[in-house]
Every structure is written in structure tokens, then in C-alpha cells.
């Protein structure tokens, strides 16, 4: 299972994801430059945190037009595993790969702290190694992380068991405490908290390992179908 970590201009958690996968998990990760259109060499794609294109216009609004995003859309449509963390989640939403929007935090301030998440489903390649209801302590670091969608969409997310994580103490005003959601086919995950920052006991928490381990142990769907 090889993970491609996309580097947009302004990505700044790209190295953290690379390090967590290669060094903490002894998996395989490599960087993919944003103008690349070929993902045939990887089994999963990770869109890292950061400030792609300086968050100009709106977080993720410019990155969605990056050449690599057309490839990511195809990759996802073919069943490939895609995970977007923080700015990566914002990009997935802007690109239409996940529903809803990420608005400015309720108190209008950037917030960096450890939060507690509850695992809402284990039925996904990102949560298969977790148990339902499992609490995870993961850091957040964002100014625009308040998840929002209309009631119809939210009801559908609930009904289809597509809410991957909820905040136990909502830090940003996200509707229905949503911290991470899945695509309808369950192969795309977007989440605001940073699992890659919690993979090393030296960092205070290694509870992000379960999510990345799930990804690394998933069947490389993309290789089968492509």
C-alpha cells in the first residue's frame, strides 16, 4: 500500500504525513507535486493540511483547480482511497468529492489544541482498525473548520452511516459536532483533526495511528479496478 502525499503550493503538513507513514508506521509514502496528473503509482492519496494557495479566495477554492485534482477525482471515482486532513478536507469539499462546507470557526479565531473525537463508524478503510465509540485524542489546528451542510444532506450522512468522527467537545461550532465524513462509496474521508500529528509518543498522543494503520492495511481497491 503506497500513499501519495500531494504537495500544493502552501501545503505545510505534507512532511508530517510523510514522516508518520514512513517513519512511525514503517509504511510507504511519497510526495506528488500538484501539477502531476498521474496517480497510477500509488494506492491511496492523502491531501495534507496547510494553506494551499495561501487560502486565497476561500480555503481550498483554488487548489480544487490544480491539475492533480482532476486525477484525484478520477482516482476516487475508480474506488481509490482518498483522505483529506484539515486543508485537505477543505479541498475535498470545494472539489465536490464530499458534501457540505467548512466555515470560519464560531469564535472567528484560529484554534490549535488537542480535542477528543468519537469514532462513529468502523465501516470504512479509514476506521476499520478502530472500534465503534472509540475515543481518540487528536490535535486540531484550523481557522475554518466549522462543518456545515443543509438538513437534508446531514440526515443523509447520518442515515448512510457516513459520519466518521464527531467532536466530544465541539471546538468550532461544527453542525451536529461533525469532525469527519465519508463519501457515499466510503472511499473518501475528510476530517479536520490531524491524525498524522498523533503518531509518536513524543508528541503527546499516538492515537492517530489507528486511522493511518487502517488505511495502510486496506485492500488497494484502486489497483483492482484500474
Amino acid at each position, binding site marked *: 500500500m503506497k500513499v501519495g502525499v500531494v504537495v500544493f503550493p502552501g501545503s505545510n503538513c505534507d512532511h508530517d504525513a510523510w514522516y508518520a507513514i514512513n517513519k512511525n508506521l514503517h509504511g510507504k509514502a511519497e510526495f506528488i507535486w500538484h501539477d502531476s496528473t498521474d496517480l497510477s503509482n500509488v494506492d491511496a492519496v492523502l491531501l495534507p493540511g496547510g494553506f494551499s494557495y495561501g487560502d486565497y479566495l476561500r480555503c481550498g477554492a483554488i487548489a480544487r483547480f490544480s491539475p492533480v485534482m482532476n486525477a484525484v477525482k478520477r482516482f476516487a471515482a475508480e474506488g481509490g482511497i482518498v483522505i483529506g486532513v484539515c486543508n485537505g478536507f477543505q479541498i475535498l469539499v470545494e472539489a465536490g468529492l464530499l458534501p457540505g462546507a467548512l466555515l470560519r470557526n464560531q469564535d472567528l479565531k484560529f*484554534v490549535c489544541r488537542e480535542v477528543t473525537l468519537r469514532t462513529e463508524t468502523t465501516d470504512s478503510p479509514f476506521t476499520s482498525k478502530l472500534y465503534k465509540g472509540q475515543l481518540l485524542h487528536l490535535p486540531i489546528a484550523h481557522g475554518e473548520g466549522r462543518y456545515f451542510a443543509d438538513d437534508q444532506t446531514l440526515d443523509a450522512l447520518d442515515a448512510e452511516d457516513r459520519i466518521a468522527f464527531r467532536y466530544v467537545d465541539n471546538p468550532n461550532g461544527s453542525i451536529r459536532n461533525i469532525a469527519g465524513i465519508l463519501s457515499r462509496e466510503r472511499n473518501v474521508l475528510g476530517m479536520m483533526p490531524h491524525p498524522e500529528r498523533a503518531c509518536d509518543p513524543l508528541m503527546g498522543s499516538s492515537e492517530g495511528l489507528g486511522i493511518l494503520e487502517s488505511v495502510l492495511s486496506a485492500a488497494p481497491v484502486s489497483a483492482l479496478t484500474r
Partner: protein
Amino acid sequence: MTITPELIEQHQLTPAEYQKIVKLLGREPSYTELGVFSVMWSEHCSYKSSRIHLKKLPTQGKHVVQGPGENAGIIKLDTAGIGGGWVVAFKIESHNHPSYIEPFQGAATGVGGILRDIFTMGARPIAVMDSLRFGPPLDSPNAEHNRRILTGVVSGIAHYGNCFGVPTVGGECIFEECYSANPLVNVFALGVCKENEIFYARASGIGNPVIYVGAKTGRDGIHGASMASAEFTEESKQKRPNVQVGDPFLEKLLLEACLEAMKTGAIVAIQDMGAAGLTSSSCEMGSRGGVGIDIDLDLVPQRESGMTAYEMLLSESQERMLLVAEKGREDEVFQVFRKWGLDAVTIGVVTVAEQGVGKLRVRHYGKLVAEIPNPALADEAPRYDRPHNVKPYRRVTFEPPAHIPASKDLNADLLRLVASPDLCSKRWIWEQYDYMVRTNTIVGPGSDAAVVRVKETGTSIAMSLDGNGRYCYLDPREGAKLAVAECCRNLATTGAVPVAATNNLNFGNPERPEIMAQLVEAIEGIAEACAFFEAPITGGNVSLYNETLGEGIYPTPVLGVIGLMKTAVPAPVQFRGEGASILLLGGLGQGFQNGDHALRFGSSQYAKVILNQLWGLPPQLDMAHEKRVHDCVREILAAGLAESAHDLSDGGLAVTLSESCTNEIGARVSIEAGERVEFTLFGEAPSRILLSTHDPARIHEIALRYDVECPRIGVTMKERLQIGDGDAMWIDIAITDLKQSFENGLPKLLQTHNVG
């Protein structure tokens, strides 16, 4: 344009300085040249008032690779045989004046400027810290204004650092009325690289191209350096166009592009365009390399049309660098910058030094508009030995008040102290900073020192910022020494050994002898303490003229000391479990002669918050004792004997105990009252560290060996903090109440007052 005396004065040059320019040039300067001199000879760029005194600072040490004079200091990251081959670049810079005029952009570009200083040396920035001073957020005629500056500065720092992708791992934030019209924003940054990958700002190689990279040049920031070299008046607020606007996204691209371009091997020298932009970067690179530099302004990427040579040379547009490449290898450099979508253009060439003197030659529309010997700008700036043979400025008494009122309610006093602006939790500030990005932060904000690991080496860097304007106002020399000691104590408390320091000297108008005396005393104090604690100064910044309408700030030297340690998680500040012994390494600090306690209590936070007074002297520092405490605590920590460790500073023993009680575990402490119970609880005697342990006997053994007192003062327990002597109970508070006061202090001050 004719150079008139009025024009010279407008450029903040004295008639004598003008005569020196004429002599150096052998003719009258042009208007453009006058502008260039005015900036390069400004206090901010030339250190003309402080330079002769800065020479007193120790700059040598076994870890030092590069001392003052470059963009940043560099030391070896080598501790106990690991970390070899790697180096640390670090420095502190102020952006005080711009932050007063435009808090958000002023602070943001302060962060941007110091980050460029680090990566221009080839080092990737991995940590930032900030030392901030504002006017009181409450109970001040300027409170609303002060809150606006605070919120603006904090969001400016967050905006720039977060987007750039560098963690802001610590700092300090203090409030005094004297900072109402003169806020201080000092930003410290630190980066790492391999020793054989350091880059310097020394131009060389006749015929080598001079390449401009990064943002386009606009009219922003013209004369910013001169603005930072004058007192503020009512007109200053109209100087808003002088503040530059930062773009952290561009800086992030510039960082990645520069580090990648450096790897090509085609770059000879590189310097960021900071204060005085194009002018300072070219003449300083030329001067250091002993060569000349020719520049053609027509080739400079420009944001707007019709700019004059004067404007382009003095522009302080952000996110720009100047580099010298090897001739014939320009394309390798251009290719990297193109990849990152940045401008990179050859705008000049390195020229031969005629009779040993390289010249900066600037052409615009084919005409020579400036021709100045590089050393005249970079090295020949006037140096002043300004009068300082008077007592340093102070307007408070030495004598304690005849009657220091006895506390009516020590519990209430303690709760007020931990909620007061200086002592309360700064979480409201640091949660707005991404303090974890790059996953190196082992100890982040809210501890004694921040600790950041260097993944590649197995070593970590501990860092601490400290300054105490109240102490320095009462005695600049002792106050400065106390700041160095406190930083080193912070490092020792995490187990690190101090190796080097940087300083930011924030003072008032040096043309006033009693202010100059403060500066000289403080520098000499820093010199003495840095030499003693073996933390040589490798660079720093001087910010003078921090006065508005004749009102100056407290003398505020801010020290940044870095230390090295093997990568490991240090003992936390908070108590960890019930039933541990609480030891006070360094003792109760009751050893003064009668009367001395009262004299030195006037500088304490208790005097400030509860008594609303300031008198006397700062706490007494015995550096030899202090150092023994550091060595002792490092041995205790290395042996794994301490469950928690927290150094005593502002607020004294009771406040330190409160901070150690913020993690569910409280304490029962029994001590003697001493001369006055307030002195014992809230006196700020230095050289003390609070430890909790299950092995007090072994710690006592070690302390005995270092000749350091280490009384067992109590035991950890659930739920409450109790301090007393036998039956007398002075403090008895639920730790949930303490924690609430501590954590809600700042949000309460800021949010109940509708800050926009």
C-alpha cells in the same frame, strides 16, 4: 533636487552626519543617495548609539559557528556526541513601531522578517517564540486601545506563522501602562541545517550575476527603518503607509524555493531584503565580500509603474531576497524559482573593488543615480558614545512604604494574582498559534521552556524568552542579569544545557543620558551573566526611541537563550499523582538580612497587583548559587528522580504551586512564615525550582553535593492547595477554583469588553 538643511533634517541626519557623507563621497550626495544614507545610517540599521557598548557582549564559545554580524547566529547542534554535523540558526528581532501603527500587519511582517533571516542562512525554520508587551487591558485610560493592539498583534503573528508552517512554541506577554503607546513585539525564530549547508551573505566572484527573487517591489514601507528610529508623535499615526504588508504564502514559497535553489550549488551568497530592502542587501553583501555591486533598477520586478530610484531603493516590500549566483549557472536557479511560481531576475553584477573599495552603483533609465562605496553605507555609519554618566532613569523610591498593609485575605490575593494579566494562562493567545506543525514540538507553550526535537539527530533544542521591565526599571544591570538567569533556569528545568543567547534591547530615547545609562547598564549586566552562564550572544536587535510624546518604556532587554538536550519528554510542570514529596530546590529564599525582604518585595507581582505599587530593588541574584541549582536540577532530572519540575519566577512560591496544581492534583505545604508571610508566599527570590518526587532522599543527596538547600515543604494530594505552618492555614483553595481563575483570566479581561 538641491540638498537643503531642511531636507537633511527630514531624513533624520544631523549636519555633522551630512558632512561625513560629503567627505566619504568626496562630493554632495544626490537626493537618491541621501535617502540611501539616511536609511543605512538610521539607528535601526546602524546601531550607532549602541554599537560601542554591544562590543562588551561575549560572543565566543565552543558551540559558536557564527556570531553577530550575519543575518542570524549559528551554533553547533552537538550534545554528548550526538547531533554532530547539524547546526542551529537563531535570532530575535523587534517590530515594535510598526505594530503600534498597524498591529496586525506590523506583527505579521515582524514574523516574516525574522523567518527570512533564518532561511537566508540555509536553515529551515522550525520554531518561533514571541515576547510581547502591551498596555493594561483593563483599568487604564487606554484599555480599549490596548486590547485592540493585543488582539491585532496576536492575529498578525498567527496569520503569518500558521500559514508559513512554522510552530509558535512559546513566549511571554506582559502588561504595563508604559507600553500603552509603545507596545513591544519581539519575535524569535530558530532553524536547523547541516553544517556544510550554511549560506552566508558575502558576495564574491567578479562578473557573477546578482539575482532578485520573490515578491515585486512596491511603494510600501518606504523609510520604515527611519520610522523605527524616532520617537512617536501625534503625526506618527499618520505613517500607516510606512508599514509593510506581509504575504505568508509567498514567504512559504520563497522558503521552499530558496532551500531548493541552494541545493543546486549555484548560489554564492544570499541575503534577505529587510529594512531598507534593496539598498541594505546589496551594500551589505558587497561590503562583507569586499567587492562592488552594480544594479540596474529597470530590471527590478515592480508592482506599480512610475517608481523613482529613491522609492525603489528604499522600498521595504516583503518576501524578497537578493542572491549572487555562479556565472553561467543562472538557469539552474531560475528553474527552481519558476517551479515555485516566483520571479527571479538578474538585476546586476558583482564588480571589482577599486583600490580595495567596492562600490554600490545603481542605474535607472540608463543614468547613474547612486554611486557609493559599500563600506561607507555598511560599516562607516557614525558611532556615538552618547553621554550616560548619570544614574539610570527611575522615578520611584528605594524605601519601602512605611507600612506594607497586611493581607486581609491571602486566598483572595492568590486568586487575584493567578487571574492577573501577567500571571494568568496565556492559552487565549497561544491556542491561536499552530504550535505543533512539523511534529517536532515536545514541549509547547505554557511551560518553563519550549522543547523542539530535530528528527534527524536524536537531539532537541530547548528555548526560553524572558525579560522583566519592572526589575530593569529599578536596576537595569541586575534586571538584565535576572533575565539571563531566568532563561537558563527555564532550560535547566527541562534538563537542557544553555549554549547560546540572543537579545533584543528595547529602550527609550538614547539621546537622554539617563536612558542611555539604562541601556549601558543592561548591556553590561547581560554581558556579565551570559559570560557566567556560558551562553554567548550570537546576534540580536536593538530597538531605541520607544517613546511616545516623551513617555518612555521601562528598559526592557529581552533575552532568548537556547539549550541542547538528548531527545526525551521532560518532567511536566504539573504534579502528577498524590502522595509525592514536594521539594523546593534552592530553598525558601528567606536568607536575607532584616529589611531586605521589604526592599525587594517592591518589584514583585504582589506589589503590582495587590498593592498597586513599585519600589525598591529587584530580587537579589547570586549567580554562583543559581548555577549550582541548574547543575543540580539537571542531575536530578537525568536520574529520572523528579515527577514534576517547575521554576519559580513571577508571583513567587504560591503562584508556582498554583501552576503546578492545574492538572487535578493539589498539594499540602507547610512552611515557616518568616519575616512576613506575604514575603514568603509571594517574594520572587530567584534560583529556585519546585520538584515533586517519590525519592526525596536521593534528591537530598544530590542537592547536598551541590551545596544547594532543598527543604521538603509538603506532599501532593487531591483537590486542594493548602499552605500553612502547623495549625495556621494561610491558603486553602480548591484547585478547580485556582484553575478557573488562572485559565479564565485573559478571556475575561478581553471578552467581557467587546473587543472588535
